[in-house]
């Protein structure tokens, strides 16, 4: 009951505020008048009675305030008051408000944009029911040749599946597989996934139409079924409801469509799912990712323990080492995001710095304004306002500004996210489709804005309301708040320090990118166009057919106008693929562990790619199947095998136990080429002419390269026509060598560009900050400067006085920032190429750049100081 009473009185007071107020007025007036009447009755004159009644009553306003407090209305009530008052104050100084809001919008917007990406890529759950129970099982070493790839070998998979107790089910699947699809529109290379039949049940996602795989599908003879993604079904079958039972051809094999997945399902980045049966093969053992759904109530740690025990008891395979195995139970999402997490976290750190700098700037603005409001605060506090009340008022104002900044920041983030996703290196950002501004992002921005408001508002608020009342009042308007100076300097120093850290990070990334771009790949990529084909072995049933395809394509390509020379190679340099293998040396020994790349090429390839021939000759048309076997070796092979002799004429063999006809004669030596990537070492290579290669495995995937007379893109149409003429079922994949190289450096370029953007925003904010502090200082010291000049100081002296202050700030900031950068750039190490995280030239260049920018920011205040007119300045006294 009493609770209700309180609520009613509180509601009354809050909702019917004006009535309650007027009643309170009336009640108090009645009291005073009644008392005065009593006094009159006792013989006091009316006016005197009123005066005495009022005096004896005491502070009426204070009593009213206490009455309001008593009814518990004050908090919300005064908050509304503070809000109204705050808005009025901000409207009164629109320039100040706008600068503060824009500054914060930059900081909060950058953070919102990055958080949107982090939220989408790292935080949002996988789109499967009870996704928190899905884990990857991996026994692979953490670091493989191509980054991190979790997986379990087929043999271990079968063994683990039989004895596992912690998972409901596990399934194995492939990632990064593609297939040439024909029979539904233009031929195209599409991403596919081979999955065991448990795959969909583990993810608890069934086809929206048709059915998933039955147990046993995937065994030979029963594996000619596929499930399509919703997107592919719409794209290629125009959402045909009769699609079930139709056939598509993948790499030349006909398969029947049995199901279509619901929209949005694309795990693991596939458009078609093909059933897979795990069988143990004598010769090969595949390692594939494995996903499992934990039983309800089973913790990942239990599964981890089980897997560790399993791994301990597992017999070692031939050539296998215990250290090659690393039992791990990992959240499923990591399969997609583990490689991108570090760089996203670096970006998040960078934008946090930008926001801190923005905060420091706005805090400085507020401090400058606070100086002008010292009197207001002093008056209010001597009228009885408690200090916390004033602090709250100021915090409400700063939070209003930061909320406005946050709202503007969301707009900025909206564009920012679009820009980010557009600029992001294609295929490098997983879960891109999950990136959007959702409720979490909005909540994040709101929370961040409120925190921001308090962070930058607190110091000015505390400073302004320090107990200066008497001083401020007695000095009548002249600001006396000297403590500000120290805080402002500290803020500016931190801004410079934070900027320096960001600039150093960006500088290192940029340096890294430049060095990467300057790497000599061993060939001359300008004016080279490439076209890649994958010949399905269902159509091209052997090496002879494939060679015929290549020969004809090469002939047609070299006849194209604008083509200087045409060549072909199975795996193109910098394409990320290589086929490493062993070989035998006649009359010698291959050094232990020395393996080579074995490209299979056409005559004309070296010329077309611009790989320099150092000794001997290139392949010619005459190096065919009937001619004696020949090879060309790369320089490092020649140096390693025959350091003191002429390699031309020496013989090697690709067979382990060569028969006499297996020996191949070295006819030439070429430069080493970067095969795996610009950041990787060159690989020793032994080239073979494609007409002498008998294994279809080396012939089915082929990239044709042509050197062009003018722009490489000018021959694209011609190349397309050639391919269609030779085989109309081949999907067309054409790109210039330059653009292929650009994709390999895209990640570094993106990181460098993004960090540079953040660093430049930070620098701009810092320059504004330095400008603000000095300009304020000049304004404060106008009189002092005037006096000095009147006493004979030259404008040079004034300049020096100001510069000294600036230099102290800048050097302190650089010292602190340098220390911070040394500590923090270490986090960048794994993104850097040929640049140490403590690279001295980069550090020095950044320091000089920052110092010059900071000094540039001093220019305007310095000029103003030097132009101070002593007469005008002194007249203010």
């Amino acid at each position, binding site marked *: 009951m*009493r609770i209700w009473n*309180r609520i009613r009185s509180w509601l009354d007071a809050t909702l019917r505020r004006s009535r309650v107020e007027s009643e309170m007025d009336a009640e108090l007036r009645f009291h005073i008048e009644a*008392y005065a009447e009593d006094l009159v009755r006792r013989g006091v004159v009316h006016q005197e009675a009123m005066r005495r009644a009022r005096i004896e009553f005491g502070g009426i306003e*204070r*009593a009213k305030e206490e009455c309001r407090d008593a009814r518990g209305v004050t908090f919300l009530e005064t908050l509304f008051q503070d809000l109204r008052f705050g808005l009025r104050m901000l409207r009164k100084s629109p320039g100040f408000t706008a600068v503060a809001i824009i500054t914060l919008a930059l900081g909060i917007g950058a953070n919102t944009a990055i958080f949107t990406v982090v939220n989408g890529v790292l935080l949002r759950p996988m789109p499967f029911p009870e996704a928190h129970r899905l884990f990857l099982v991996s026994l692979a070493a953490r670091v493989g040749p191509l980054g991190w790839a979790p997986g379990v070998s087929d043999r271990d998979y079968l063994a683990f599946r039989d004895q596992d107790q912690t998972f409901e089910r596990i399934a194995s699947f492939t990632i990064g597989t593609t297939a040439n699809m024909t029979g539904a529109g233009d031929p195209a290379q599409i991403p596919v996934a081979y999955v065991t039949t448990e795959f969909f049940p583990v993810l608890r996602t069934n086809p929206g139409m048709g059915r998933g795989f039955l147990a046993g599908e995937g065994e030979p003879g029963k594996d000619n079924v596929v499930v399509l993604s919703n997107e592919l079904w719409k794209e290629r079958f125009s959402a045909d409801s009769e699609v079930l039972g139709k056939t598509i051809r993948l790499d030349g094999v006909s398969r029947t469509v049995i199901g279509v997945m619901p929209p949005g399902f694309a795990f693991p980045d596939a458009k078609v799912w093909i059933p897979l049966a795990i069988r143990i093969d004598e010769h090969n053992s595949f390692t594939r990712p494995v996903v499992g759904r934990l039983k309800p109530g089973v913790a990942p740690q239990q599964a981890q323990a089980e897997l560790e025990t399993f791994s301990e008891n597992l017999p070692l395979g031939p050539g296998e080492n215990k250290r090659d195995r690393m039992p791990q139970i990992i959240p499923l999402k990591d399969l997609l995001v583990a490689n991108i997490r570090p760089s996203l976290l670096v970006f998040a750190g960078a934008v946090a710095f930008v926001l801190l700098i923005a905060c420091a700037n706005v805090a400085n603005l507020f401090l400058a304004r606070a100086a002008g409001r010292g009197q207001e605060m002093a008056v209010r506090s001597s009228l009885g306002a408690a200090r916390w009340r004033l602090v709250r008022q100021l915090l409400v104002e700063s939070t209003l500004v930061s909320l406005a900044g946050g709202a503007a920041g969301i707009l900025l983030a909206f564009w920012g996210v679009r820009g980010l996703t557009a600029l992001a290196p294609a295929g490098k950002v997983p879960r891109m489709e999950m990136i959007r501004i959702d409720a979490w992002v909005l909540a994040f921005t709101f929370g961040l804005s409120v925190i921001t408001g308090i962070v930058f508002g607190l110091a000015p608020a505390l400073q302004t309301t320090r107990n200066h009342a008497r001083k401020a009042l007695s000095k009548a308007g002249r600001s006396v708040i000297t403590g500000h100076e120290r805080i402002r300097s500290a803020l500016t120093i931190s801004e410079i320090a934070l900027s320096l850290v960001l600039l150093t990070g960006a500088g290192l990334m940029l340096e890294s990118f430049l060095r990467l771009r300057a790497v000599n790949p061993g060939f001359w990529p300008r004016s080279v166009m490439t076209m890649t084909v994958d010949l399905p072995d269902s159509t091209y049933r052997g090496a002879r057919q494939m060679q015929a395809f290549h020969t004809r394509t090469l002939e047609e390509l070299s006849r194209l106008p604008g083509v200087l020379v045409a060549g072909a190679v199975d795996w193109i340099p910098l394409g990320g693929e290589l086929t490493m293998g062993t070989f035998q040396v006649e009359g010698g020994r291959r050094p232990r562990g020395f393996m080579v790349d074995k490209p299979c090429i056409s005559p004309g390839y070296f010329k077309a790619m611009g790989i320099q021939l150092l000794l001997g000759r290139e392949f010619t048309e005459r190096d065919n199947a009937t001619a004696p076997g020949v090879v060309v070796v790369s320089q490092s092979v020649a140096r390693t095998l025959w350091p003191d002799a002429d390699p031309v004429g020496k013989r090697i063999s690709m067979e382990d136990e060569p028969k006499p006809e297996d020996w191949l004669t070295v006819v030439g030596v070429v430069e080493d080429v970067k095969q795996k990537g610009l950041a990787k070492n060159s690989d020793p290579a032994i080239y073979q002419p494609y007409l002498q290669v008998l294994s279809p495995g080396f012939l089915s995937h082929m990239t044709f390269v042509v050197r062009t007379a003018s722009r490489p893109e000018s021959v694209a149409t011609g190349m397309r026509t050639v391919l269609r003429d030779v085989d109309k079922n081949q999907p067309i994949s054409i790109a210039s060598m330059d653009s292929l190289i650009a994709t390999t450096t895209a990640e570094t370029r993106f990181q460098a560009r993004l960090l540079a953007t953040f660093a430049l925003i930070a620098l701009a904010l810092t320059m504004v900050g330095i400008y603000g502090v000095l300009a304020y200082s000049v304004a404060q010291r106008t009189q002092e400067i005037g006096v000095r000049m009147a006493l004979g100081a030259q404008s040079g002296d004034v300049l020096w006085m100001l510069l000294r202050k600036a230099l102290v700030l800048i050097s302190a900031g650089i010292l602190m920032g340098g220390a911070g950068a040394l500590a923090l750039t270490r986090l960048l190490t794994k993104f850097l190429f040929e640049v140490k995280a403590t690279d001295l030239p980069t550090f020095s260049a950044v320091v000089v750049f920052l110092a010059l920018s900071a000094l540039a920011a001093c220019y305007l205040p310095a000029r103003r100081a030097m132009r101070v007119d002593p007469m005008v300045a002194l007249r203010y006294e």
Partner: protein
Amino acid sequence: MDKQMDLLQGTLDMLILKAVSLGPLHGYGVLLRIQQISKDRLEIQQGSLYPALYRLEHQGWIASEWGESENKRRAKYYHLTAAGKRRLQTESQKWNRMAELIEGILGTTAEEV
């Protein structure tokens, strides 16, 4: 200083409840009645009376309504609620017990120890 205030405040609440229990009163009337009962030995800060009244009303011990004063003016009259009556009882008992206790302690002579 603060402690004294607290004590006074608690006492003032009780006195107001007692004053109002004798019949509805407006704020000024409460003041007069307390002075009257205490035979002017108790001075009450007029300014602190109203916050106390508002607090008691907020807590539901007393309720108010607008009425007409002796000299035909609109005035806000406070009366005791049922909860207020109980409150006054328990407060009085507590006060009496406390007063007895203190009196007993203060009245102790050396022989009695």
